[in-house]
Structures are given as C-alpha cells and as structure tokens.
C-alpha cells in the first residue's frame, strides 16, 4: 500500500516537473543567487570590486551589537510594526466583517473596489498626497477650520502619527482581504445556532466568529508586520526629524554611504529577528485560534 502510494506520487511529480521548472528557475536566478550574494557581502570588509582589498569579517554583525544605536532603532521599528498592525486590525476587521456578512451584491462590489483602490496607485504618489493633507495649511487643516467655529491648528506632517497614518493606509487592504476570505467561509448557520442556543451577540463574536476567522487575522498581521518593520519610504517622507527607523538606516548604508556589507548585515539581522518573533508567536496564536 505504502509502496503503491510512493510510486503514484512519483508518477505525479515527473509530469509536473516541466510545469515547475520556470518557477524554480526564476526563483534561483532572481531570489536565491542575489540573496546568497548579499549573505556573502555581509561577511566582507569591503565590496569585492576591482583594485580594492577585502577580507572576511564578522565586524558588520558585531557593529549591531556594539552600538546601542541599532538595537534602539530596531526596537522603535518593531513598535511601529505592532502599532500599524493593531490599527489595521481595528480598521480592517470590522470592514471585512461588513463586506462578508452584511453587504451583498452591488454595494459589496463598490466597497471592495474602494478597499483595493490603494493597491492600484503608486506608493510614492500615496505618500505625497498624504503630505498635502497633513501639513499645516494643508487640506485637513483648511477643511476643519472652515467648518469648526473655533480656530484649531493641525500640523501632523513630519511626526510619528503621520508615519502611522501613511503606513496604515498602505497596508490596511491586506487585513481586509485576508479577513474577508476567512469570514466569508464561516457558515451562517453556525452563527444562527449560537444565537438560538442563547448566546448574546457579543458571545457569538468572541466564541464563534473571531476564533473561526483567526487564520485570516494571523495571515494579515504577518503580511503587514513584516514589511512595516523594514519600511523606509514612509518614515523618511512623512516622519521628518523623527523619521529615522531601522529601514532608513539600512537604506542609508546602500544609497548614501555605500557600505553594502553593513547594510546587508543589518538586513539579515532584521530578517532573523522577524523570523524569531513569528516563530515565537506561532504557537501562542495557534492556541488562540
């Protein structure tokens, strides 16, 4: 029986190979090779370019641990990642619920379109339009002062809240989409059963709906948390003098000071920290689910 299964699966694999080949070839060329090059760079004293001396070193990784600067920045970035993820849940989950369970037909399509719209616009354009809205004398400031009877001064530009706003706007669609998929799959009769057996609305939410949609929440959170921790464009443009984060320092190493080895080492430390966090969080979240 076991043998037969093995033969069967081998037979299944062989005809599949030509189909898999392009994907694997692409992965090897576009992801694996450059990534290996970056690992290699991160252990070098200098880039291996014509006429320059270089040798292997652990110094780039040591730099992270010897200067409190980098760990401080990494903590700030992790905090940013958590806050943005939290806001995405607060905003995205109810929206996903309404989309999946309340709205039907045309209105659902229309709201869906609005949710996905940010995906279709260029990231830089999105950020610069926020700059126009948030600055002093900007759209938000002018609009509120036109309506309110008293004078208020809104200048959110170049601040931590501005970074959060920009990032939440960019990433909330991920949360809506992943949660929508799991919420939609929940059988309505389960909710009705819970209600008919005497559970309050709140009990149904916490005991039935949230647990069943947990995979979507987790997937969405991971999809948001990981890129936000390494984000550099939004903090740089919206954050002003408070916009220095781990991602911007990595960008500086590559673009401004041309210290690729240190930039690569910092990137891999970030990758390791993120993987550790996800690994630690996985069992907890699974139990919760």
């Amino acid at each position, binding site marked *: 029986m076991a043998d037969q299964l093995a033969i069967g699966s081998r037979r299944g694999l062989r005809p599949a190979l030509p189909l898999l080949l392009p994907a694997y070839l692409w992965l090897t060329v576009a992801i694996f090779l450059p990534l290996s090059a970056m690992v290699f760079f991160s252990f070098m004293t200098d880039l291996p370019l*014509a006429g320059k001396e270089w040798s292997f070193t652990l110094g780039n990784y040591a730099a992270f641990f010897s200067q409190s600067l980098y760990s401080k920045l990494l903590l700030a970035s992790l905090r940013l990642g958590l806050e943005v993820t939290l806001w995405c849940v607060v905003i995205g989950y109810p929206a996903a619920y309404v989309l999946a369970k309340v709205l039907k037909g045309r209105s659902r399509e229309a709201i869906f379109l609005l949710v996905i719209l940010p995906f279709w616009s260029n990231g830089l354009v999105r950020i610069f339009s926020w700059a126009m809205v948030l600055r002093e004398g900007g759209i938000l400031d002018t609009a509120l002062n036109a309506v309110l009877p008293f004078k208020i001064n809104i200048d959110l530009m170049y601040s931590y809240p501005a970074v959060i706003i920009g990032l939440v706007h960019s990433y909330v669609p991920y949360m809506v989409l992943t949660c929508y998929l799991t919420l939609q799959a929940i059988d309505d009769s389960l909710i009705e059963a819970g209600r008919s057996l005497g559970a309050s609305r709140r009990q149904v939410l916490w005991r039935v709906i949230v647990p069943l949609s947990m995979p979507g929440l987790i997937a969405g959170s991971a999809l948001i948390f*990981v*890129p936000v921790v390494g984000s550099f464009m939004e903090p740089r443009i919206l954050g002003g003098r408070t916009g220095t984060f781990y991602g911007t320092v990595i960008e500086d190493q590559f673009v401004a000071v041309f210290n690729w080895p240190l930039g690569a080492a910092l990137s891999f430390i970030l990758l390791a920290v993120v993987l550790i966090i996800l690994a630690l969080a996985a069992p907890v979240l699974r139990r919760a689910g």
Partner: protein
Amino acid sequence: MRMPRLTALLTATAVFVSAFTAYAFPLAAQAAEEVHVLNWKGYGADEPWAVANFEKATGFKVVNDFFNSEQEMLTKIRTNPGLYDVVMINAAFNDQAMAGKLIQPIDVSKLSNYADIAKDKAGSPMLDHDGKVYGVPWVWGLTALAINDKSFDKPPTSIAEMWNPAHKGRVIIRDDAVEAVQFGALASGQNINDIKDLEAVKAKLTSLMPQIKTFWSSENDWNQMVASNQIDIGTYWSGSADRAKTHFKLPVSLVIPQEGSVAWLDAFSIPVGSKNVAGAEAFINYMIDPKFYVEWVTKVGAPVSANTKAVEALPGDAFNRKVMGDPEVAKRIQFQAPITDEQREKYLALWQELKVNVK
C-alpha cells in the same frame, strides 16, 4: 522590508554582472567618437541644449551616466575601467581617486580655456599632484544659509539665528553627516577641516535638533517647504538658492554668516583607460567655456565658474558675480579638504546617534 531587500538584490546583481562583464570583455565595443560622462544628474553636463551644442561643434557623441553619492561614483569608475572618458569629482575626493590609480594626468595645454581658470583653483594642491594636473576646476559654491524672505525684515548675519527660539520647528538642514558635522564646526567656531573638539560639535547639533522641522535631501524639498511657507531658515547650497530665486521666483535669499561657510570645488577628471582622451579634453574645455557657463546660469542657474572670464561674462549684478565674487565673502569661506574614511564613519555615527536620540 520587502522593498529595500528587493532593490538591494537587484543592485547587487547589477554590480556582479557589471563587474564580470568588465573583466570578461575589457575591449567591449565602444565607438571611438563617443564621450562617456559621469556626473550628478541635472548638473550642467546633461543639459540637452549643452549636449546638442557640443555635439554639433565637435562631432563627438555624449553619453551621460549619473551617480547619487561620491562613493557610488568611485565604485562606478573602479568597476568599469575604460567605460568613462570624463568624470566629475569633488576636489575633496580627487586625492582618493588618484591614489587608487583611477584617474590620469590631464594635458592642460590641449584645453584652450584652462589658462583663464582662477590661479588659486587651478593650482589647488587637492587637484595637482607632482606637478601634474589630475582635475580641471569647473565650478565652486557654498553650503551656507538661506532664508524665507517672508519671515525676516532684515536678513540675519549670524549662524546663531538657526538656534533662535522664534524659529522653533521652522528650521531645516540636509540629511548628510559630513555637511551637518562641518556646519556644527562652524557654529562652534572651529576649522571645518581640522575639527579638534567633536564634543562641542555634538553639543551644538544636539541643541539644534528640537528646532528642526525635517531634513531635506533635494532642492525640490527645500523649495516646496518655502513655497508652502513652512520654514524660516536652513542650510542650502548657493547655486540652489540662486536657482530658487531667479528660476522658480521663490522668496529665498542666501546668507553667508559671519562665522563663515563651507565651500566646495567640483572638477573634471579623465579616468585611467579612457578610450577617447581627445573627446574628453574637448568636453572638459567646453564645460569651462564662458559661453556655456553664461547660458547655463541664464537658463537654469548654476554655481560659480572657476573660469574668471566666464564669471566676468555675467551681468554685473548677477548673484554669482556680485555676492560670490565679493572679497569680503572670500575671506569667510573655508574650502572642504579631503576626508578620510575613518573620519567619515565617525561623522556618520555621530549624526545617526543625534537623529536617533530625537525620538
């Protein structure tokens, strides 16, 4: 995280590929009549009208390539031996390029405009080594202060204005470690090329941080800030301030504070292995020609030419002639000297620490 890593990977691949092709095909086909120029983007050499004029006059074809930092420029000429014919190098980096055997001596007798270059610039020890010329001075300028005219009745005279509580949250400086540290050196009364008391610089910059609105990285940032009246004062480049005023009609004035200003000198060099030295010489000569310079200033706005005849060809009230040519100004400015890698890293560490402690 996805974005920076992907970009990094792509650039890494590009560097690898270019490094290998440079080794494998050193004699890659390159038409002899092409002049390959490496410079900052939008910095004179790539002006379409200038390229067209040069091509018409000499028959050479100009191929422009750009860099985003001096380190990138050095890497590009290192990894592509023989590709470039002309490279624009800040005088403070000329030493490093010469020591790395990246650039070759220039036969200045072939450059008819070279004789008109100001003697202090043409004879600069940063560009001439062992009696040979490794860089032809092109333009120079200042990193000084610029003000929003709407915020001042009378232009300030001291660098201390940046620390004035009246401008809290309306000050801007460039996100550049070396520039920031040298600015701090000026503010604490030190020589920018021989900073003895780095702690004093750090203390000065630390007290400046709460004043700052944001960091600028391009001219466009600065000009937009002024256009939307969000800043009062900040560090700015002299050529850019001129461009903001004359070209974009913004309320911007350059201030050269009594404490002094950082000055820089940009020069053209010919990389070792250039396949078209004659074309390179013709191009450099064209770049320092008064006719090109006047057109550049009038059409776009530019720093000050190192060619005295070119500056004299400007109208008498032109900023680059009246203000920058003022002997009083000349006394106050300090030219940037070469910086070692250790210094650069020390400055960067200090700057990053300052930025992180703002949080």
